[in-house]
């Protein structure tokens, strides 16, 4: 924590508190720096157990959570949090995500995925959309899903006429999850990995 930047520059308004959880020191440092400014203040944890401790101590506005960590991984952290009634918004950050982890995460109201590598801009934009969702149908839908309201989320998504791949992917995955509540294995079976590429924030699918 000693390497964290000085947070006294924050304004009088109590800044948003973000917890960054990652086992990779440089990345953890980078995330924390990126999220430390006038409106947000970042704290860090280097593994799942530490993150759970920190979250038990005080409340955070959002958690940026690495999926792959030794011992207690991202999914375990989410499950533990939700089990103890903590519904703090989580941004799941990973280089690669599987159907299994995606379905499990969404089931636990985690709908924000960041694909590593992440640029500071993308990180800030993701955090912003979690804390202050925008006006687009997709953002509204995701906000509902974040609150566990899948039916409302689907209504918002159906109202959209943009038809981007990201929207249709979300519509599809949320629809299946809504149709088979709790049947995670069945949902996993019906989904293919290819649907996941479009779920993340700032998805860049263009290959050259």
């Amino acid at each position, binding site marked *: 924590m000693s390497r964290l930047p000085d947070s006294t520059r924050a304004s009088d308004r109590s800044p948003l508190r973000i917890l960054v959880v990652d086992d990779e020191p440089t990345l953890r440092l980078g*995330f924390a720096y*990126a999220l430390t400014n006038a409106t947000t203040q970042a704290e860090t944890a280097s593994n799942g157990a530490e993150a759970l401790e920190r979250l038990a101590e005080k409340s955070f506005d959002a958690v940026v959570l690495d999926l792959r960590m030794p011992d207690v991984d991202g999914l375990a952290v989410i499950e533990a949090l939700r089990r103890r009634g903590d519904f703090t918004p989580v941004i799941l950050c990973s280089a690669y995500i599987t159907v299994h982890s995606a379905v499990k995460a969404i089931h636990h109201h985690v709908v924000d995925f960041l694909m590593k*590598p*992440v640029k500071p801009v993308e990180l800030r934009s993701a955090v912003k959309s979690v804390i202050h969702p925008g006006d687009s149908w997709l953002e509204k839908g995701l906000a509902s899903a974040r609150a566990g309201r899948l039916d409302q989320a689907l209504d918002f998504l159906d109202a959209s006429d943009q038809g981007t791949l990201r929207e249709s992917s979300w519509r599809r995955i949320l629809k299946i999850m809504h149709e088979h509540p709790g049947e995670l294995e069945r949902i996993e079976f019906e989904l293919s990995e*290819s649907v996941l590429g479009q779920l993340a924030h700032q998805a860049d699918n263009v290959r*050259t």
Partner: protein
Amino acid sequence: MLRARLFLGLLTLVILLWATGAAALVILNDADTRFQGRLKQDYQAIDLAQGLRSYTSMLNSTYITTLAGPAPETAPDRQLFDETRTKVEDTLHALRLLGGGNERWESSLSSLTEALGLYFGDYERLLTNEVVDRTERSDLLRTFGAHTQRITDLGESLTHLAEEQLFNASRALAAESGKNTAFLATLVVLGTAMAVMIYFQLLRHLVEPVVGLRDSMEQVTMGNFELTLPMPTAGSEFGSLVTTFNSMAEELRIRRRETDERLFRNNLVNRALLSAIPSPVYVLDLHGDTVRLNPAAEDLNESLGLGTRLPGKVLRLFQNCQQQGHNHLPEDPREALLFRIDEKEHFFLPRIFRFSAGRNEQNPYAGWAVLLHDVTRIRWLDDMKTNLLSTVSHEIKTPLTGIRMVLHLLLEEETGRLSDMQRTMLSSASEDCERLLSTLNTLLDISRAESGSTHLDLRPTNLRDLADQSIHLFESKASASRITLRIDAADNLPQVMADPMRISEVVHNLVSNAIKHSPPGGNVDVHIARSGADFVRLSVLDDGPGVPEESEGRIFERFYRAPNQRTDGIGLGLFISREIMRAHEGRIGLSERNPDQTRTEFFIDVPTA
């Protein structure tokens, strides 16, 4: 030898023929002559006998009339009587000569002579005019009548006798001709017997050897070269033929022995070659029946519990090849078939190809060869490589994301201003970092594409929608290079059965490539239309220089980049696209460039729903 026999036999036959003919002629001639003689003799006798009557009647008519009246003063002229008497005696003499010793003829003739004597006696009395008395004259007249009658009767009887003799002669002739017929018949029978003998001789000495030779030749034709014909007796015309035949058979024997040896040697070489091949090899005939297995195939079949048949999975592929008539020569180890042998997984890549001795399709030496190339090790290494690639990429990627984050933060200059040199160095580092990350991402994509985890989420999809999204996505990039993106889709297009995400990936790739290779100010067109009954085709056309001819066959290989490319990339886009299309059972390709066509066209065919 045969010639002599034939000559002798036929000569005998000819002599017999001549003899028969001559005998027949002689006999006929003889009978005819004899009959003619007899006929002449008898007719003469009859003629003479008849002549007697005319003499008597002539004499009677001349002289008897004088008897009716009184005796004349002078004796009648006896000149006629003397002449007639001489003629009658000549006739009698002739008749005696004609008698030929016949008793009845002789007695009749002597009675006639006697009667004529009496008759002429009467005339003597008349002519000498001895009888003047009227009574005596009438008695004489009566005696004349009686004697004339008697002469006539005897002449008649002689005529009858001659006729009887003629009849007898013809009967004798008939009896003789019967004997002659028997003789001739004997000769003919003899000739026939001779002919039959010659026939059997011919059969024995000419036909039988020829038939024997023909049978032997048939045997040789059937491959029995061990045959040797027995030599015929010395002097036979077949001697040279049999010798020639035997030497031919001998020659054939030698040739066959040589061929057999060569075959044996070839067989040994083939066997050695087949044994040296560690992969199971099956050689089959055109019907698919196994002709030969190599030891590796025998081992495989034994462990699979098969006889000499092809294993089931291979058999299905083989039957497919048989029906379609083309070879199956896959290169990709991922097309290998899995066999479980002793609880272990083995992968065999089946290579099926047709062979034939010539171009002729119905060649009896044509067949199929099936080689099962064991790619278990290659597959294992490939899997290892893929796993290693994936692990290493992840391990590198994780710290790299941190480094990248920090570089970006520094370049944002929120933590303090950078000097120009610092900014240049950090920008360079950041660019390298981006490139490294992009490479790592591609490597991960390959390992993902190759590990078969690309499970497809197939559902009815509108290809036009995917194309629209792609156009939308690339609009800013295209306008930066002053390239116009256009789309043109046929009406009433059917939906395709596809994983929209994966197909989007392919479309993005094609559009992105087209933009990259288009000159500034060019057009990139996306066409969508039906392609046959089962596919919808999406084509992407650009105004770029096209794919160099020498690269056309290789652009879908991984890591392949056409030479002299100015644009970035490590050459995986089309490879991954091909993998995706292959998983869709669709197609991807580069349209052939017509000489008048200046545009480059890549297309994908997606199966209809």
